[in-house]
């Protein structure tokens, strides 16, 4: 052992480089690959446009969604009010609610906003939630493991967990999927938009729908209504565009959805930094191990 030739130094260097590569590799492999390119709201994406002025509150959209997705009825308190059920849930993915603005009482449809900067996609650890090339946020229930992060990070509170067992954590995420199965099999578009008898809920190319929405808003404003488009740029651009007759907050919608940024910071900054920490720890330990091996002789250890 004492007859080591002077390439002792060369071995040190080789080992050092190897360790650096190992440490760096661990950090990079762990880091969320930016190669999972962020979605961009393109005019060729599909989208839905909702116009509350045309909406008559018939709830055909609610029923069509239930029917196509084979969702069970939800039991609600018969309080004699029009909202039934009260809110989106694990088995209600499309809902008509009553809102009041300066215009007065009117209906408003709520469903998944299919964001570009989708917090749910960002935090999903299985990629069960993902952006379809057409732009909407699809859900692969097979992949979903029921962790529930999507339900907590969505700024609109859209996804809900279908909980089979709270103790074991068995659950599945549930939300409007833009009728992904209808689109993928070529049957058509979202049931809700196809069934709407008055054309309040329509679907098509996002670019076209935005043009229509702008024209419509101009028309409504000319009538003295405080109309605006919601979804053009929010969260990077939503694929569920809405015409609002008031402030977003009056509809329970955030004017600036903040959670996607929080979700991104968690996934793309904090976690990769954690990986750097792991890599550094492993690097340091391996380095120390090899260094100490040479430096401390067992005979001197008490």
């Amino acid at each position: 052992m004492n007859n080591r030739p002077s390439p002792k130094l060369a071995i040190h260097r080789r080992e050092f480089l190897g360790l650096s590569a190992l440490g760096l590799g661990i950090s990079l492999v762990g880091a969320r690959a930016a190669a999972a390119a962020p979605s961009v709201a393109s005019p060729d994406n599909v989208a839905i446009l909702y116009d509350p002025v045309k909406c008559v509150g018939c709830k055909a959209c609610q029923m069509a969604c239930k029917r196509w997705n084979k969702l069970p009825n939800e039991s609600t308190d018969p309080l004699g009010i029009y909202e039934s059920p009260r809110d989106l849930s694990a088995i209600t993915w499309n809902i008509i609610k009553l809102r009041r603005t300066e215009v007065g009482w009117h209906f408003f449809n709520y469903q998944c906003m299919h964001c570009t900067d989708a917090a749910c996609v960002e935090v999903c650890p299985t990629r069960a939630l993902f952006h379809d090339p057409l732009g909407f946020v699809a859900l692969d229930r097979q992949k979903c493991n029921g962790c529930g992060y999507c339900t907590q990070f969505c700024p609109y509170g859209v996804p809900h967990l279908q909980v089979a067992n709270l103790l074991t954590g068995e659950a599945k995420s549930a939300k409007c999927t833009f009728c992904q199965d209808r689109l993928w099999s070529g049957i058509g578009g979202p049931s809700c938009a196809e069934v709407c008898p008055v054309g309040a809920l329509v679907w098509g190319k996002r670019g076209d729908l935005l043009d229509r929405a702008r024209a419509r808003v101009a028309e409504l404003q000319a009538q003295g209504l405080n109309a605006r488009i919601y979804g053009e740029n929010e969260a990077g651009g939503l694929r569920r565009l809405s015409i609002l007759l008031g402030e977003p907050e009056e509809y329970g919608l955030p004017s600036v959805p903040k959670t996607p940024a929080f979700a991104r910071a968690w996934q793309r900054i904090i976690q990769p930094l954690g990986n750097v920490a792991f890599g550094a720890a492993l690097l340091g330990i391996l380095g120390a191990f090899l260094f100490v091996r040479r430096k401390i002789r067992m005979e001197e250890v008490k």
Partner: protein
Amino acid sequence: MTVQLKGRPEVIQIQWIPKYTTLERAAHWIHTATFVPLAITGMILYFPFLEPLAQGEAGLFIRLVHRVAAVIFGLLPIVYFIFEPRRLLMNIREFLPNKEDLGWLKATPAYYLLGRHEAMPPQGRFNAGEKMNGLVMIVAWAVFGITGVPMWFGKGVIPPEIFRWLVVFHDLAMIVSVCMFLVHLYLAVAHPLMWAGLVSMRFGVTSAEYAMEHHAKWYYGPKRAMEIWEAKKREAAHKGGH
């Protein structure tokens, strides 16, 4: 006990001093046996390259394992507190840092990397590094519990705004405690100077000579330990290094 290495004429006498009770040792190893699966199952939701393991049925199973281990992990210190409260309180007291721990920090490279024995000031029952490990673990245990239980039962109950912070802190606690664990593992298993550490955690006793060197304040008492160290430093200076 008398130890003779094969083929060597010398005989080593080892005096054993009790250090850890049976409950403490059992708790430590059960803690290890739950911490590792917890870290691994947690990491499956953390590292994108482990995605396939996180999906579908596999993912459900992983999360179930995480919960089962979490319950044991969480209850362990409570069981310890019920059966040996004085020991738990004594150990917590021994973990608390004091000014002298800075001396350990300064001496770390000289002692752990170069083996310079006289560089290290006398340590108590736990040296400053062990204190760091203990405190990190205690704080991490608390953070995991405080964040984990609502994460398990609180979806739809606690406001999502709070939930988001809980998962972030759960992550941070994991990062810190796993890094600490890796260092702890290396020192306990692979570092030549720390040989009696693993013996003491397996069998409950540590060698008197080891304690004399590594935990002198615990062995001799603070005053005499300092005197002995000053003498050692003077001797090393006279010899001009080791």
